[in-house]
């Protein structure tokens, strides 16, 4: 009996690992690195995480977890509330619909698909920021953050893959 409780706790902890790992990465991205201008283009960990886990383990990244993740990102980031929530949900919906097709894809293919997905996500984020703040925002900074996010995708995806192998066999 006791054994089964521990096994259950263990499996819950394991199934939470995508969420926990994403939060850790978000916090790692917040550490002031004193590299000029890096803070503005720090890759969007939430976007990479949702994209990766929806494809590889959709059962561990259901819509409500995405919602929670977006809400935390919005609260930590200090920007208008709800934007990350909506954008991540849209990515979840769009990618999730094609999950079967992507699940067998190699890293290279998934990276290629990530390029337009991230472009859409950043455009939506920019659009809603403009609407909610009520003023023009220079899209240049968003574009550079988009490039950084795409460039960092393989690194983070590799990290997630290691975690998946270690905790979610």
């Amino acid at each position, binding site marked *: 009996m006791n054994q089964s409780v521990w096994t259950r706790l263990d499996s819950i902890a394991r199934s939470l690992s995508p969420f926990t790992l994403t939060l850790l990465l978000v916090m*790692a991205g917040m550490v002031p690195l004193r590299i000029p201008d890096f*803070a503005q283009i720090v890759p969007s960990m939430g976007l990479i995480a949702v994209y990766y886990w929806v494809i590889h383990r959709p059962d561990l990244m259901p819509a409500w977890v995405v919602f929670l993740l977006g809400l935390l990102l919005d609260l930590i980031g200090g920007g208008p*509330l709800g934007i990350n929530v909506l954008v991540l949900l849209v990515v979840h919906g769009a990618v999730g619909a094609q999950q079967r097709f992507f699940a067998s894809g190699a890293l290279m293919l998934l990276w290629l698909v990530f390029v337009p997905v991230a472009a859409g996500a950043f455009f939506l984020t920019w659009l809603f920021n403009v609407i909610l703040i009520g003023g023009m925002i220079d899209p240049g900074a968003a574009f550079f953050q988009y490039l950084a996010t795409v460039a960092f995708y393989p690194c983070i995806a590799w990290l997630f893959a290691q975690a998946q192998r270690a905790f979610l066999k």
Partner: protein
Amino acid sequence: MKKPTGPVSHITTPIKAWAHRFAFLFLVVAAFGLMLLGKADTVLVERARTAITDAVAPVLELVARPVASLSAVIESVGELADLRAQNAALGRENERLRNWQVVAQRLEAENEALRQTTKMVPDSGLRFVTARVIGDPGGAFARSVLVNAGSRDGVEKGQAAITSEGLAGRVAQVGVRSARVLLLTDINSRIPVLVGSGRERAILAGDNTKQPRLRYLLPSAVIQPGDHVVTSGHGGVFPPGLPVGVVTEASESAMRVQPFVDWAHMEILRLADYELPRTLLPADGSALREPQERAGM
């Protein structure tokens, strides 16, 4: 997880899919609801934000320190290379500054004498809370940092955040052990300033670029590149005269200011608590009234 198979799944699968879709739609609608809630600026949202920043602050603080010292080591190695040139430059600068010191002392004495002759109300006292920058949420859409001081250290909303170079921003949100400083480059930042030797009034408005804009200037104002920008103290929140930056562009279309603050090396922030002179505070009117009047009431 085992997927259900058999005749029952033929019926349950469409229902499940439908429920899934419904839940998804519900969450999307909730996201729009959050946007409205955030726009309404309720106390609830503010509480949630401070709770989250307070929760992540200890972790960030733990990581920020070693990272800061490591980058300091890397920087000092780089500086060793041009130590000689730097030394010579510092020597020259020191000489120049000593001249300025003499000028400043003379002006201070003159200023003091003039204040006494005009019976000017003395400037109120400044109290500083020094805090370490522990987090930079980053991203393309907001410019703010988290510091490791909060309400228990005397930090209050609206206080000016300054570095040794000049004004960096203002405190926008205060938790118990952490606070968020809205940088003056943020799109929501508006700071009353004075520009140039003509002391023209303006509002320094951030737009998420490195150089915030000057707005609401009088049409008659004459502004040139190179003019210094200082806080005006209008509104009574910021101390007047804090250095902000230099005008870099002064055309018809846009007036931009390069802040003095070195954003990449912003490690320590001083939060200035500027107490207005008591006589200006109409809180209970006691400062304005004579004691006899109060006794008679």
